[in-house]
C-alpha cells in the first residue's frame, strides 16, 4: 500500500536532488533543470496532500505551479541564451557581475 508518507518521502528526495543540482552544477541549463525538479517535487507533495484530504485545492495549486514553471523556464532560457551570447559560456563561475 502506497501511503501519503511514501509520496512525501519521494517528494523530499526529489527536492534534495534538485537542490544539490542547483548548488553543485555549474551549467546554467542544468541549474534550470534542477529548479524544474524542485518545482515538481513540490507539485508531487501538493497532489499527494490533495488525494489524502479528498479535495481539489492541492491539484489546482499544482496546475498553477506548472504554469508558472513554464513561464519561468521561458525567461530563464532567454537569459541563458543572452548570457551565452555575451560571455561565450554558460558556466556560472564566470558570471560574477554582482561581485562587490
Amino acid at each position, binding site marked *: 500500500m502506497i501511503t501519503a508518507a511514501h509520496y512525501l518521502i519521494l517528494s523530499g528526495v526529489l527536492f534534495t536532488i534538485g537542490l544539490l543540482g*542547483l*548548488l553543485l552544477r*555549474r551549467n546554467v541549463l542544468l541549474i534550470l533543470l534542477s529548479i524544474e525538479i524542485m518545482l515538481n517535487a513540490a507539485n508531487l507533495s501538493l497532489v499527494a496532500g490533495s488525494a489524502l484530504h479528498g479535495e481539489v485545492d492541492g491539484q489546482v495549486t499544482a496546475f498553477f505551479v506548472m504554469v508558472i514553471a513554464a513561464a519561468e523556464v521561458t525567461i530563464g532560457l532567454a537569459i541563458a541564451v543572452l548570457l551565452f551570447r555575451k560571455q561565450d559560456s554558460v558556466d*556560472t*563561475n564566470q558570471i560574477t557581475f*554582482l*561581485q*562587490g
Partner: protein
Amino acid sequence: MLTASWFIFFIPLIAAILIPLFFHKRPAAASWLATGGVLICFLLTLFVLSRYQSFYDANHHGLEASLVWMQIGSVPVEFGIYLNGLTLLMLLIVTGVGSLVFLFSTSYMKSDPGYSRYFACLSLFVFSMLGIVLSNNMIQIFIFWELVGLSSYLLIGFWFEKEEASTAGKKAFITTRVGDIGMMLGILALFGFFHAQGHGTFNFASIEQNLPLVNISSAWMTAICIGLFLGAVGKSAQVPLHVWLPDAMEGPTPVSALIHAATMVAAGIFLLARLLFIFEASPDAMAVIAWTGGITAMLAASIALVQNDIKKILAYSTLSQLGYMVLALGLANAEAGMFHLTTHAFFKALLFLGAGSLIHVFHTQDIRQMGVMVREEAKHEGKGRFYLFSRMPVTAWTFLLGTFALMGIPPLSGYFSKEEILAAASNGPALLFWLAAATVFLTAFYMGRLATIVFFPAGRASEDRSHHLHENNWPITVPLIILAVLSAFGGFFPIKALVLEGHSSHAAGHPSSAGLAILSISLAAAGFLAAFLLYRNRTISLTSSVHSLQAPARVLEKKYFFDDAYDGLIQCGQEKIARAADRIERYAVVEWTINGSGRIVRYIGNIVRKLQTGVIQFYAFVFAAGTTVIIYLVLISGALK
C-alpha cells in the same frame, strides 16, 4: 475712505513690483510711475484727511479695518490698517515729503545707470514706511519695521560698487537689527503677559483697552518698555545705536533726505508716540527715554561742530533733532514730539535736498572746498561775498531759510516746535532742560558755520578759476521751493490738534513762557553770530589754529570714540567668538562628525562587500542554508512545546 486707505497702502508696492518687471529698460517711465504713484498716495491722503474729521466726530475713535492673517490658538494675527490723527499726520509726511523727494530724484539721479532700480527701491521703502504707519497690530508693525530696514539697506548701499557704500548699508542694517531684537523681545514679553492672563492680542486698541486689566510687575513693565524703546533707538538712531546714520550718508542724497531726515528715522518716534500708553505705565522707562533723547541731542550737536562733509553735518543735526523728539516723548508729550517731527521733516528734507542741489553743482561734499570754489569764481567775476545768491538763488535762499528754521528763528516752523519741546523739558529735570537749551546754541553754531563757509565765503582767493556755478533745473528747484514754504509756515499748521484729536494733552499744561522764548531765540542768535564772526574770514580750520581747542576737537572728530569702541568690542569679543566657532565648525562638525561618519560607513562597507562574491550559487547556498536553519528552528520550537 477705507478703500482709499488700502490704495494708499498698496500703490507704492505695485510700483515697486512693476518697475523691475516691466520698466527695467525704460528708466524715464519707471521714474514717472514711481513718482506718480506716491503723488496719488498723497492726494488720496488729502482726501482721507478731508473725510476723517466728520468720521471722528461721529464715532469718536479712529478707523480700523483688518483681515485675520492667521489664527494662533485663540489669538488672531491681523493684517490691517488703523487710521487716526497720528496716522494721518505720518501719512501726510511720508507721501508729501516723499513725492517731493521722488520729483527731485528724477533730475538728480538722471545719469545713473541704476535709475529704475533706484525708483523701485524708493517705492519699496515708501511702502514699508506706510506699512508701519498704517499698521494696527504689533506683528504687522514689526514686519514692516524690518522691511524698512531692508529697503534702507538697499538704498544706502545703492552704489554698491563703492566699498564704503556697501559697508555703510551693512552697518545700518546690522546696527538697527540690534535694536530690533530688543523690540521683538518687548513685543513677545508683552504678549506673554497678556496671553497668560487671558487677553492674548497683538492689536493696539485691544492692548490699550486691556492694559489696566493685565497685571504686570513694574520691573517687567520697565523691561518691556526698554525693549520696545530699543527698537526705536535703532531706527531713530539714538545713542548708543546712532553710529549707522552718519555712515548712511554714503547713499544718494535724496535718499538721505527721505530716509535719514524725514521718514525712516521718524519711524522710531512714531513707534514711541503710538505706544505711548504702554510706556507711560513705566516711569523708569520714561526717564530712560527722556535722558537718551537729551544726551543724543547734545552729543550729536557737538559732533556736528567739527564735521566738514555737508551731509555729515546734516546727519548729526538729524540725530540731535531726533534726540529732541525722543526727549519730548520721554516726558509724555507726544504732541510736541510729533510737531517737531513734522516741522523737522520739512526743513531737514529741504536742507538735504538743498545740499543735494549744491553737491550736484559743486561735485564735492566738503564745505571748505565749496567755499573755496565760490570764492574763486566770485573773484573771477569781480563779485563779493553774496555771489552764490545771484548764481543759485533758489538753492541758496531756500537753504538759508531751512537753516534758520532748524535753528529755531521765529516765525519759521522750527521755532514753534522747538519751543514746545523746551517748554516740556522745563517741567522735567533741570539738567535735562539745560542739555536741551545748550543744544539750541550748538545747533545754531554748526549751522551758522556751514552757512558762513558755503554761502558767505570771504572775498579773497588764492587763484582765479571759473567753475560755472549755475542753478539746477525745475525738478530740483520746485521741491526746494515747496519745502521752503512748508518750513516757513509749518509752525501754523494745526498739527498738535491732529495728534491730540480733542483729547487733552497727556502732559501737564505748560504754555511756553516769554522768558523761554527769549532764552531760545537769544541762544540761537548768539550761536549763529558766533559762528559767523569766527568763520567769515577764516580759510583754515579753527581748531588747528587755536591750540587749546585741539584736544576737545580730537574727541569730537573721533565722534566720542563710539565707532572705535564698537570696533574694539567686535575685535575682542565677536571676532574671537567667530574664530572659535569657525574652528569648532571646521574640526568638530565637518571633520569629525560629517567626514568621520562617512569614513566609518566606508570602512564597514569595505569589510561587508567581501560577502558579495557575485557567484550565484553562493547566494543560492546561503538562501537554502538559511531556509533550512529557519525550518529546523521552527520544528525544534514546535517539538519543545
